[in-house]
């Protein structure tokens, strides 16, 4: 049985430097997965391989059975799997909130009626319904990142990948964004998130810990965090462990 997102013995190098080595991985639809690890361990590369922004040097990445290396599938893959990046400033392209959300849907050729329905639905979901006609420049960091999420969500992907979506935000904004992950999972989406703040990942079904270009641990949060208690790269606080115990 194959997962919704599947890596088969994937290798990737940047200019002769190995970034991702021998990764095999299967993520089921609807899973909430956290990806953690030190700077430069390969997290972002792993995520960019998922929708064909990067292609493996060897091995293959499949999204619902479609190979990212096959150009015929790339449009379909990107429709199924949406990505949100660290810096919301680099993802917002329009001059009003509404236009930004609609842009992706227009590219997919949705009907005006459908776009209107989706627009209202996603703005409600991320809590920006009142900002529909505002200029994105007037939004706070957390609001901008939620707008970026809404714009991806509007295209109705089954899987959503977030590469450190909260690291540029203030604590309030980070909370606003992190609270969406669980709700997205509840809405049936596959949610894949990388973060340096373990508190955002306590609700994950599964945590993947990477070190030195490979996957070292892949298990429940409790198990992985316990193993990383003395890690150089991951901060495991007593309050985090306490938080997990109560769950």
């Amino acid at each position, binding site marked *: 049985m194959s997962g919704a997102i599947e890596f088969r013995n994937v290798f990737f190098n940047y200019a002769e430097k190995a970034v991702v080595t021998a990764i095999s991985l299967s993520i089921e639809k609807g899973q909430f997965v956290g990806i953690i690890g030190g*700077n430069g361990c390969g997290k972002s590369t792993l995520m960019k391989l998922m929708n064909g922004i990067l292609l493996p040097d060897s091995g293959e990445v499949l999204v619902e059975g479609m190979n990212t290396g096959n150009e015929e599938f790339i449009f379909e893959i990107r429709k199924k799997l949406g990505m949100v990046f660290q810096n919301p400033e680099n993802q917002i392209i329009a001059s009003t909130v509404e236009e930004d959300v609609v842009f992706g849907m227009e590219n997919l050729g949705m009907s005006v009626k459908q776009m209107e329905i989706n627009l209202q639905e996603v703005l409600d979901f991320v809590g920006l319904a009142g900002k529909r006609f505002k200029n994105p*420049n007037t939004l706070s*960091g957390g609001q901008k990142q939620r707008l970026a999420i809404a714009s991806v969500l509007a295209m109705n992907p089954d899987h959503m990948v977030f590469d*450190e979506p909260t*690291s540029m935000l*203030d*604590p309030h904004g980070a909370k606003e964004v992190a609270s969406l992950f669980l709700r997205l999972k509840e809405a049936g989406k596959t949610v894949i998130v990388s973060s*340096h703040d373990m508190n955002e990942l306590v609700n994950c079904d599964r945590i993947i810990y990477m070190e030195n270009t490979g996957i070292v641990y892949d298990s429940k949060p409790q198990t992985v965090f316990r193993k990383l208690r003395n890690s150089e790269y991951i901060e495991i606080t007593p309050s985090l462990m306490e938080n997990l115990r109560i769950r």
Partner: protein
Amino acid sequence: MIEYKNVDFTYSRNTPFSQKVLENFNLKIESGENIAIMGKTGCGKSTVVKLCNGLIKPDNGTIEVDGLKTTEKKTLMELRKKVGLVFQYPENQFFCPTVSEEIGFALKNFGFADRVEEMTEKSIRTVGLSHDFLGRSPFRLSGGEMRLVAIASVICWEPDYIFLDEPTAGLDFRGRKKISELIRNLNEYGKTTVTVTHNQDFVKSNMKRIVHIKNGLKFFDGPVEEYSFDEDI
């Protein structure tokens, strides 16, 4: 000493998108201080940083660094040698093909041409990266590594005042500890550090004075011990 006197600043002035960010803002930073600037996204923190070396000019008021005005063209080079600025988004500040050229660029500009190698080596080690990074492209680093290189490319010429805009964003645990250590070391050598950050734990354990900006005004300015940390900042 750096002094902001009655500073007003508005983005996109005289356009429909005009946005007032700072109003009658005053701030004195003494030599050797260790300050955190805090406040919500959009409150004007980064604007304060960009004003300090004349990247943007105030609408009203003045900013002086050791008596040099940021609006005075003749002394701008001298002023910029005194003030190092590490931006929030490191990928926007790189333009050289290798990390060593990136770091060496400022060194050559500021008259250290004969010490480039030694000073480059020292600064890359100070941020906790190995010598191997010097030959790599800054654009092909991970987000966290980029940030460390950006910091190295500013501390390398040993400016007296160092402004760090969100230096721990995107860094792993080890990187965050490295930055704490770096700030401590800089202060020990008599350097002034001004750190814009949202990371409250980082402030509690590393900073001495907090300046909290709210709606373009100073909301709090005093020692860390007197500041009441609240989740909502």
